[in-house]
């Protein structure tokens, strides 16, 4: 990884963080019409994976998908405007926080049904293979989704057909109020890859360099026809399941501990130690990301809502 990439990863993480914090404010101010699931604290995963994807590689994501869209290159304005239900959003207000699309940069959808994006990404990879390209599909999903049939069926099929897909499980230790150890048969979800004869790794999802390295290996397999990989990135959900969830079910001390292992702070320190970055460079990058997020929020709030009748566009009327 060269220095430019190191800085780029930091920038992406900052962009996601600042956009999510803007959305938290917009939600408080009543500009987001329903509770959103924010990605704060998991930025290293989206950043570390997407940094190595080409524009023509594709991803699917989940109800917690804002960060993946930003990392794949969706302009903040289009994401925030969609979450604020505006006509200028990436889906014209039809999709909303759980349904973000921008196929021209490979955002093939964030999906509100847990696990449902995994077979879709598998099918995207099938097309990429049948069309004889070296493109790659990535599916981001949570620890909770790894207990759903969609996960198991997709890994098996992708293995049998040697599809160019990377399964990225973001283990943030909770699925709503249910802690992962209460619902999951394995200590490491990465171990489940063995059942499907594909490589599986478990990395610290708050260390962007670890995520980056795991993705590099998975990508080279996928691009050269060697099939899928499962990456488990262990992280922690520092916000409630959705905005407004007080997460009273957390174990005591867990949150404080997680806050101390912040992915942005970790990478910043690393870059300073390596002489890639100075404290004032970081401040400048953070200020730039914050300004962009504020501008995107202002753009969203100033944008019009779609007209009511637009609801029927694209619907088969009989």
């Amino acid at each position, binding site marked *: 990884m060269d220095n430019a990439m190191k800085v780029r990863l930091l920038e992406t993480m900052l962009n996601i963080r600042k956009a999510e914090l803007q959305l938290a404010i917009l939600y408080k101010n009543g500009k987001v019409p*329903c509770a959103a699931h924010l990605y704060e604290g998991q930025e290293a995963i989206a950043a570390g994976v997407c940094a190595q994807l080409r524009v023509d590689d594709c991803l699917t994501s989940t109800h917690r998908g804002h960060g993946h869209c930003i990392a794949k290159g969706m302009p903040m304005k289009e994401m925030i405007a969609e979450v604020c*239900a505006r006509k200028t959003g990436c889906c014209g*207000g039809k999709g909303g926080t759980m349904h973000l699309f921008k196929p021209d940069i490979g955002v093939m959808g964030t*999906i509100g049904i847990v696990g449902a994006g995994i077979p879709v990404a598998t099918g995207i990879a099938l097309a990429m293979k049948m069309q004889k390209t070296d493109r790659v599909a990535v599916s981001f999903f949570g620890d909770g989704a790894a207990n759903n049939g*969609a996960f198991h069926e997709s890994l098996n099929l992708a293995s049998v057909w040697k599809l160019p897909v990377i399964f990225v499980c973001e283990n943030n230790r909770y699925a709503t109020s249910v802690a992962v150890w209460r619902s999951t048969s394995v200590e490491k979800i990465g171990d489940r890859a063995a059942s499907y004869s594909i490589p599986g790794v478990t990395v610290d999802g708050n260390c962007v360099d670890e995520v980056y390295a795991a993705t590099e290996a998975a990508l080279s397999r996928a691009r050269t026809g060697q099939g899928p990989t499962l990456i488990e990135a262990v992280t922690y959900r520092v916000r409630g399941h959705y905005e407004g969830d007080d997460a009273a079910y957390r174990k005591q001390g867990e949150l404080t501990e997680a806050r101390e292992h912040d992915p942005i702070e970790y990478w910043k320190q690393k870059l300073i130690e390596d002489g890639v970055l100075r404290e004032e460079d970081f401040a400048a990058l953070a200020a730039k990301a914050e300004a962009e997020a504020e501008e995107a929020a202002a753009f969203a709030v100033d944008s019009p*809502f779609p007209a*009511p009748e637009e*609801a029927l566009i694209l619907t088969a009327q009989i």
Partner: protein
Amino acid sequence: MARRIRFIEALREGMRQEMERDPSVFIMGEGVGPHGSAFKQTDGLCAQFGEERLRDTPISELAIAGTAVGAAMMGMRPIADLMWIDFSMLAMDQICNQAAKLRYISNGQVKVPLVYRMSTGKSKSNAAHHSGSFYSWFINTPGLKVVLPSTPNDAKGLIISAIRDDDPVIYLEHKLLFNVRGDVPEEPFAIPLGVAEVKREGTDLTIVATGAMVGFSLTAAEALAKEGISVEVIDPRTLMPYDGATILTSVRKTGNLLCVEEGFRYCGFGSEIIAFVVENAMDSLRRPPRQLTTMHTTIPFSPPMEDYVFPNPERVAAAVRALLKSEA
């Protein structure tokens, strides 16, 4: 003795009293345990009955629905919470091919006494994957009973009947109704499945409404009364099997029928009621019956579009006026 309590409290009380009465009743689903469920439907029950009977599950809808079938065949009475009706689609085989059919294909040698609970309907910008009203899929499946209460009293009386019933029952909880208050007796009571209630009497037109549409229709009826239009509002409460007799009696009196529902129009509950009335009381209809439903579209996120596609009290009133003005 009756007290004024919220819909969600009435539902919870019904489940609690059945669990106290019958040790074979248990609840399973995502977050039903210590957390008390997505909308707090089971709040406090885990403290009373323990995690053995309030079983948190992984996000495994197919396994939730299917283990409920197996447990029910063995004499337990599971209540499986599938959270949103939209997620029940991941479990359709277990619900529609297994739960619904096993009693029949075994020639009655096994029974499947379970309840699938799921929240349904519009809330606030819940968008395409969390706003469904797909109950007609279940109505269309022989072997299933489908319940959709509109008041706290009905919520309690119907959950008790659903639990005691020896067949699988789909019990729907409308998200807009959880905090609605009403009088509910404290002691356990059962409202028989398949019995409608006339929620308001009237003489000019019959509205058959379900779920949140009952309240909308009552509001509309109140407004229409001021214009001299007398509307009768019937809530079937059980959508399958439905109480055809009560509906026919009403239509024979009023001569006009409007079905208001949140599901879609095509092959929906309203279309069924109209077909039933036409088949059985064509002679008493003075004008062609009509339906008011959610528009036939995926549910959009943005509030102006979302509001546009759903029924509301003003649209119910407008539909009544239009029907009564139509060619006899």
